[in-house]
């Protein structure tokens, strides 16, 4: 009971902070925080796949690309308003994920990692090949289209005037919140139990009446739909897509974020929402502030490296992954979950 109260209170606090944040920060920072929201969605989606069904994907960047391109093509070529493209992007990416989940059924952990890595590496060349649809290497420009709700200037919502970046911020975080609660409702009952049973022992789960094929493909579909929404929001916020918007490294970046967040935190627990926030913030702010961080280190240890070199964020990124895997394999989420469990147990004992 105490733990439940903790979890609920924590969620309310996080929602309140997210809702009020744009009042305290600059317009540019609001845009950065909107990107954090995009990665939160992708990370929660990956957590559904890896944490619940035990499958791994190194190719979620490709599902993000499917979502992003769905949005861009609908906006630029079919005149669909950007908001309406989001559910369609979720559907397209979700169906793609569900279909990919079928061959994935025959692939156990390591081989699935390999195939999804292959998808991540080869997807950009498919985008370039079908240039008639995707605009090829030049991509599709969405900036200044009438289908863009923000329109690069400002938006009137419920009697308030929001700057474009604040609009993107609230859009992203509202979608993130809705998706998180939706996934929690879907996975807290029978479906979630079936998936976790499959993850722990597929044979035992199957003999207890769980149909592995259905649940595993379903998990892949849900997870890909999350990635598709993240990609769609990314396309809307940068108002442009080309193959470099969704590079090979994006898949790895999302996985890194998920590892830092903590793979396998049960949705609804404190770690399952604070973890992705930590992972996504790391992704966004490390890209932005890696050179400052390096300069700070060089004050103590002279490394003679150029802080502005493009590889600096990658070096820190790689180090973070290795250190997290070696020291806290459960990630930020896992550490927080263990902590809240311990504290709430202590409190329960006090009351008795």
């Amino acid at each position, binding site marked *: 009971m105490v733990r439940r109260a903790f979890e609920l209170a924590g969620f309310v606090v996080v929602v309140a902070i997210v809702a009020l944040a744009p009042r305290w920060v600059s317009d540019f920072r609001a845009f950065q925080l909107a990107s954090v929201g995009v990665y939160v969605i992708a990370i929660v989606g990956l957590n559904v796949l890896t944490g619940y069904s035990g499958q791994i994907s190194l190719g979620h960047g490709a599902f993000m690309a499917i979502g992003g391109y769905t949005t861009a093509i609908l906006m630029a070529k079919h005149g669909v308003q950007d908001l309406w493209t989001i559910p369609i992007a979720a559907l397209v990416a979700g169906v793609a994920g569900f279909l990919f989940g079928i061959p994935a059924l025959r692939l156990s*952990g390591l081989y699935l990692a390999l*195939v999804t890595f292959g998808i991540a*590496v080869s997807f950009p060349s498919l985008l370039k090949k079908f240039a008639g649809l995707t605009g090829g290497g030049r991509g599709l420009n969405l900036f200044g289209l009438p289908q863009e709700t923000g329109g690069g200037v400002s938006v009137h919502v419920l009697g308030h005037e929001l700057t474009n970046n604040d609009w993107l911020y609230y859009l992203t975080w509202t979608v993130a919140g809705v998706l998180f609660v939706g996934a929690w409702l879907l996975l807290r009952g029978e479906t979630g139990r079936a998936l976790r049973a499959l993850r722990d022992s597929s044979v035992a789960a199957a003999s207890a009446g769980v149909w592995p094929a259905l649940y595993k493909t379903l998990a892949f579909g849900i997870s890909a739909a999350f990635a598709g929404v993240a990609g769609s929001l990314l396309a809307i916020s940068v108002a442009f897509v080309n193959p470099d918007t969704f590079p090979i490294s994006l898949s790895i970046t999302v996985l890194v974020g998920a590892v830092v967040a903590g793979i396998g935190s049960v949705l609804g627990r404190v770690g399952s929402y604070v973890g992705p926030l930590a992972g996504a913030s790391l992704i966004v702010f490390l890209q932005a502030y890696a050179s400052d961080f390096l300069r700070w280190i060089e004050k103590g240890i002279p490394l003679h490296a*150029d802080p502005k070199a493009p590889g600096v*964020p990658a070096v820190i*990124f790689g180090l973070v992954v290795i250190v997290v*895997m070696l020291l806290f*394999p459960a990630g930020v989420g896992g550490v927080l979950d263990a902590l809240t469990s311990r504290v709430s147990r202590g409190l329960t004992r006090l009351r008795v």
Partner: protein
Amino acid sequence: MSQFFQQVVSGLASGGIFASLALALVLIYRATRAINFAQGEMATVSTFVAWSLVHHGMPFWGAFFLTLALSFIGGVALERVVIRPVENAPVLTVVIVTLGLAVLLNGFTSVEWGSEVKKFPSPFPTRPIHVGGVAFSIQDLGVIGVSIALVVALGAFFRFTKLGLALRAAALNPEASRLVGVRVSWMLALGWGLAAVLGAVSGMMIAPVVFLDPNMMQTVLLYALAAAILGGMDSPVGAVVGGLALGVILNLTGAYVNFIGGTLRLPVALAVILLVLLVRPSGLFGRAAVRKV
């Protein structure tokens, strides 16, 4: 017809490069049941080291062998520092650590050597030789020669030396090997060293063709994975045959299937991976794993 033979030979040349890297992957897979996603980036670092040596005036073959030695030391060191702590962790943990290592090394190369493209010297002349009306490039034949020499040397090492036997034993049955006095953990480190050497060879062979940049091996890694899967992840012979076959497949589909052309080589490799895993997961030469549940 002569075009066909040229395509096959240049396919075998790139196949030889895939085979070296695939062999590196198989070596580590056999020992730890994990795929080293950093194998490509390790090879890139080795190749940049070779470039630096040549750049400072060392003759090509001197730089080549010095780089192999340095790569071996580097591979062993990486295993000791990064992989050793997760030796007994689940396979996916090891995989994520190697991914982290790949990101780290990729960043390191562009910090250390810059991200602009560099020209890497080729030890072989670029002029063609003519055999029966067909023009073969000496470059291609040289690469094939180096790959064959490498495989023969490695095969002899595993077959005829005591250390090779210990390495095979440690991979096959760690517990029993430990009982008869093989230092299994060090054998893993040696395996990483050898894999780094193989990767270095593939990097130095492909760099003259594609030029040298920090992302050079990203796509080659996928081809090597496809080669290893095609041949069977636990079969060294399979890795070599798979690599050569994949090189030829990619070249022929590229040359004769208009839709694929030069642009869809990566998706073809992915299709090969998927097809093999779904139809015959043990590959051409691998042994099917039997598991009791």
